[in-house]
Every structure is written in structure tokens, then in C-alpha cells.
């Protein structure tokens, strides 16, 4: 055993509580929110009518509505990803899972006796989500029971998943015609898009589940220190397993919304790279990839930021496909802001602590 020095608390951490202004300035969501506002301002400068809302048939239309509606799939996937990442995991298979869910739902609808009936859509979606539960159980099994690193374990389904989706659709681009189903993406309730309401509903449900029960605390404990959690009697395995199932269900819902939006499923391209967008949203929201403390609000903001970005790019005259370029810069920027080493490089005094930590690690 080497004698370990207990690092003393840094003086500023014992300082009295900061005032409201400095609390706001120090809040982790400040910069993402500022970024969204800045983008919206740029949009308004480029297209003065950008923020205009119209009411048509009792529904809201306009760019802001599109932004929140289009953020729904990423928000859902990112929601599940947040909990997975909080347990020190990662789920690369969510895009494939989304494709499988969409494939199952669309195929079931097309095959049902009455293709247009709402009951067919409900049954199909339920079947699809049940399939997602199975896929989540599979991922969770590999991670928590077999003990394979999450990135590797979920890679298996990421590779095979689209093949499975094509197996379901028989390689065809399946196009169901079912109003109830397409309503998932295009419908409105109380003037708001259903897709967004679903995502928001899931966020609220998750928030209640994690913060009103002890689940959130236990997830964070497992993510911060798995060994200590196990010794404190936390059922780390069950918790880890559960979050992978949850992530798969969230991904499945996202897949359904995407398929409903286009009324079709292409197993090869549906939800392509959505895992990356989701991880990006989580990271923007301030949940560290190293696990531990997570922020659901942050994830919501992250998803909205991505959606705003995607909408902003064409509005200022750049081809919309270039959004990948911007995402790349966002990834790097966010990581730089979060990287202890990059931050330490900015502070001279912090240098030693960082370098010694790097060696000790």
C-alpha cells in the first residue's frame, strides 16, 4: 500500500454560497442556453420572420415548433443515453435499435388486417417496444452479467442490428399508411406537436422516477464508484441492466417517431448516427462521459441545441448537410470545456495537480 495523501479541499470550495448572479454564471447550462439564443438571434437576422408562429386549424406552425418537434427523437435517445452514461456506460446500438423498432412497427401495420385502424398502430407500436425491451435486456446482459465493456458490448448490436431490421422488413422500404401512426410525428395535441409531447412526457416520467425515488442517487453512486456501491449493498448489476433496457425503449420510441415522420422505414438509414447526436446532447448537457452525476434538464437543452443548430444552418445559407461540420466543432468545444487537462492548461497553478494525476492514473 502506498500512503495516499488526502487532497485537501480547495479553499474556494469552502467559501460561502455564491450569490445568485455568480450562481447563474457558474451554472453548467448557461453556455448551451446562450448558444441556443445566439443561434436564434442569427436566424432572426438572416430571416426576420424566423420566429413567427402561425395558428392554423388550431395548431401551431413555424420554425420554433419545428425545432422542438425535430428535437424529439434525439431527446428520447439522449434521455436513455444519459442514464446509461451516468452508470459509466455507453450504448452505441441505439441507432440500430431505433431502426429495428421502426421496422417491426411498420411491418406489423402493413401486415395487419386493417392497415388504417388505430388499433393496428397501437398493437404494432407495443410489439415494437417489446422487441426493444428484449434488445435492451441483451445489451444489459452483456454489460452487467458477462462483464464486457459497454462500448464493446453494444458494438455487437450496432453491427448486427441493421441486419436484423432488414430481416424484419425483408430488405424493403416499408411504407405503412396509418393515420394514427403518422400522427406520432405530425399530430398535435393542445396545439403542440405530439412527438415533442411524447419526448417531454418521457423526460418528466424519468425525472420523477429518478429524483422522486432513490433510483437517481443509486445510479449516480454506481457510476461514480462501482466498487464502493457494491460494498454498500447497492444492486449495481440490476441497476446497470435496467438502464440499458430503458435506453433501448427510449431508442425504440425515437425510431417510431422517425418512421412516422416519413411514413416509411429504411432499415439502412433510419436513425443513422443518432447515437452520436444523442451522446453529443448528453455531453452538451453537462453529464460527464466518465459517469456519475447526470442532468436530465441538461440533456433536454442539449437536444434542443442540436435541433436548433440543424435548423439554423440552412437558414443562413449553408447547405444543411454541413451540419456535421458544425457538430464536429461542438463536440470538440464541449470536450475542451469539460476536459480537466485543457482547463488546467489555462491555469498555471493547476498544472502540477493535473500532471501528477495523469501519472498516478
Amino acid at each position, binding site marked *: 500500500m502506498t500512503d495516499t495523501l488526502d487532497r485537501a479541499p480547495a479553499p474556494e470550495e469552502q467559501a460561502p454560497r455564491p450569490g445568485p448572479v455568480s450562481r447563474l454564471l457558474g451554472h453548467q447550462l448557461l453556455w448551451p442556453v446562450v448558444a441556443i439564443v445566439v443561434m436564434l438571434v442569427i436566424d432572426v437576422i438572416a430571416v426576420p420572420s424566423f420566429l413567427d408562429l402561425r395558428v392554423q386549424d388550431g395548431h401551431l406552425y413555424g420554425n420554433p415548433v419545428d425545432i422542438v418537434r425535430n428535437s424529439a427523437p434525439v431527446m428520447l435517445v439522449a434521455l436513455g443515453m444519459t442514464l446509461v452514461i451516468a452508470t459509466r456506460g455507453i450504448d452505441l446500438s441505439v441507432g440500430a435499435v431505433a431502426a429495428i423498432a421502426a421496422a417491426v412497427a411498420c411491418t406489423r401495420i402493413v401486415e395487419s388486417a386493417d392497415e388504417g385502424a388505430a388499433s393496428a398502430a397501437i398493437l404494432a407500436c407495443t410489439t415494437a417496444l417489446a422487441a426493444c425491451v428484449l434488445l435492451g435486456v441483451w445489451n444489459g446482459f452483456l454489460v452487467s452479467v458477462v462483464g*464486457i465493456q459497454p462500448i464493446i458490448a453494444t458494438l*455487437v448490436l450496432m453491427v448486427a442490428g441493421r*441486419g436484423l431490421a432488414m430481416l424484419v422488413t425483408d430488405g424493403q422500404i416499408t411504407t405503412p399508411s396509418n393515420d394514427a401512426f403518422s400522427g406520432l410525428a405530425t399530430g398535435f395535441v393542445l396545439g403542440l406537436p405530439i412527438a415533442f409531447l411524447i419526448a417531454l412526457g418521457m423526460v418528466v416520467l424519468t425525472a420523477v422516477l429518478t429524483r422522486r425515488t432513490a433510483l437517481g442517487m443509486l445510479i449516480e453512486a454506481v457510476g461514480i464508484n462501482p466498487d464502493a456501491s457494491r460494498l454498500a449493498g447497492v444492486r449495481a448489476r440490476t441497476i446497470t441492466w435496467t438502464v440499458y433496457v430503458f435506453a433501448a425503449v427510449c431508442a425504440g420510441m425515437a425510431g417510431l417517431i422517425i418512421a412516422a415522420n416519413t411514413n416509411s422505414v429504411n432499415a439502412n438509414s433510419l436513425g443513422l448516427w443518432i447515437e452520436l447526436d444523442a451522446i453529443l446532447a448528453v455531453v452538451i448537457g453537462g453529464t460527464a462521459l466518465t459517469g456519475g452525476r447526470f442532468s436530465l434538464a441538461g440533456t433536454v437543452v442539449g437536444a434542443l441545441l442540436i435541433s436548433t443548430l440543424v435548423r439554423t444552418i440552412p437558414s443562413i445559407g449553408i447547405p444543411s448537410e454541413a451540419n456535421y461540420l458544425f457538430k464536429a466543432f461542438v463536440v470538440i468545444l464541449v470536450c475542451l470545456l469539460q476536459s480537466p487537462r485543457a482547463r488546467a492548461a489555462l491555469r498555471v497553478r493547476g498544472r502540477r495537480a493535473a500532471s501528477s494525476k495523469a501519472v498516478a492514473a
Partner: protein
Amino acid sequence: MSATTVPNPTTWDRVRTYSPASRYLPVVATFALFIGMFGFGGISYQGFFDWQVFLSLLLDNSFLIVLAVGMTFVILSGGIDLSVGSVVALSTMIAAKTMEMGWSPYLSMATVLLVGTLLGTLMGVLVHYLDIEPFIATLAGLFLARGLTYLISKNSIPITDETFVELAFASITLPGGYYTTWTVVIALATVVVAAYVLARTRFGRTVYAVGGNEASAMLMGLRVAVVKVGVYAISGFCAALGGLLFALYTLSGYSLHAVGMELDAIAAVVIGGTLLTGGRGFVVGSLLGVLVLGTIQTFISFDGTLNSWWTRIAIGVLLLVFVVVQRLMTRRQS
């Protein structure tokens, strides 16, 4: 304690004691798998047992071989590179666009290789100096390369440069009436060079050391920084080279080329017996891994009844088997 007398080792002693077989076991397993699959194909399908089938296997997968070589470096060092598929697309696009603009094909190819290497170096810097997780840093690379590709052109650009097309179609006749192309030669040469670098150079051995235990490698005074940035630079270079081979194969530049090819490359490396956690594996294994993937595809094209998606499922299953076996092996050791 009396000093044990060690007799001067004979050559036989060295042959006998050097490198226990367990290190090669995964590669041997992959080789056996490949032979078995090829043999099975030969029994099941008419005309499968032809050297030309094997040569086509190399030809159709030459770019993947090169990608897998670069990926092997990265994975051996304990990292991962998600950007290679996008870099392939970017490379085909740069090649097509510059040649369309009338650049010399050589200048164009040199540019491609330079851009790929630079992108890789950039990711390596993010990983090592800024402590960003490899998969996030290369995710940025994935987005960046794909975004640049779209920025150059949304549509497919055909490559019509005469020299380039000539190179694409030039075939090398082998004894026995078989033929192959330069892409295969380049791919195999890459494997040979990489194998030498990994086995016999200080850089290569340091790659293994970093993958085995980075903190130790640092304390041993090895040049960890050079290696960690270097492997991503190599992977970027290989992705660019693979992109050129892909351009030779498809004679076009397109922003939707090579979507998900990074997964194939990773799968090939893992199936080739390289430990995803780093430190163990061989380039030859990755070559065999690619051949196994290619054989699955060949099966499916020989067997009219199977659909193409079975390829992905089969790759997934193989990946699973190797990953689980690796896990059980490392668990037993620790």
C-alpha cells in the same frame, strides 16, 4: 542462493522457448475459421475452390484491409477510431473533385494522403494532449470528415482522369492465368510494412506497451505521446489510402460512400484476435479478419437464397463470439 548456471542457448532453445504459442492462439483460431469457411464454401458451392475466388476476395476488400491495418494500430494502443469510414468518403471526394478540377492524379492522391494524416494527427492530439476519450475525439473526426465531404459536393462525382482509370483497371497477370490488381498489391504491402513496424521497431513495441499499461509505459520513460498521436496519424493515413483504393474500386467520389465502414474495420480487427482493450494482437490477424468478413459476403453472393443482410448479422454474431471469448480469457488471467 547459488547463481543458477544458464547454459548458452542454442538456436533450438531459442526457437523452443521464444514466444509462447498462447499469444498466437487467437490468430490461429481466425486462420482456422477462415480455412474452415473457405473449405465449407468449396464443398457447398460450385466453383468456389478457385484461386480467382480468393483473389477476388482480396480485390473486393483491399480498402477494408488497409483500414483494418490502421485500426489495428489504434486498438493495440488501447484506443478506437470511429472516423475511418468518413475519412474514406472524404478521400474519394477530394480525389474526385481535385481531378475534376484538372489536378494531376499524383498531386491529388498526395493531397488525399496528407489530409487523412492531418485529420488523424488532429484526433491524436485531442486524445493525448487534451485527454478527450478516443471515441469522442474520433466521433468529432467522423462528423468533421463527413461534413467536409458534404461541403465539397452533395452529389456523386465520377472520376474520369485517364491515368487514374488506367491504374484502376490495370491488372497483373499471375502464373496460371490468374490476375489481380494494384490495389491488392498496395493493400498487402501495407500489411507487410505494418507487421514489420509493429513487430520490429521501437515505435511498434511502444504501441503494445501503451496498450498494455499506459501509466507504466510513461513511468518506463517511453515516448507515449509520440505513439498515442502517431497511431491516430497512421490510422488517418490508412483511411486516406483506403479511400484512394475505394476510389479506384468505385471510380467516384460520394458523400455517402463507406457509411458504417468503421464498424467493419473494427469487427475485422476484433475477429482477427486483437484485444479491444489494447496490447494484444497482430496485423496479420486483422488481414484474416477482413478475409473472414469477405468470405461471408462471398458465401451470400454464391448462395442465391440468402439475403445481403445476413452478412451484417453474421458479422455481429462472430463479433459477439470473439468478444465473449476475449472476455473469458482476460477474466481467467486476472
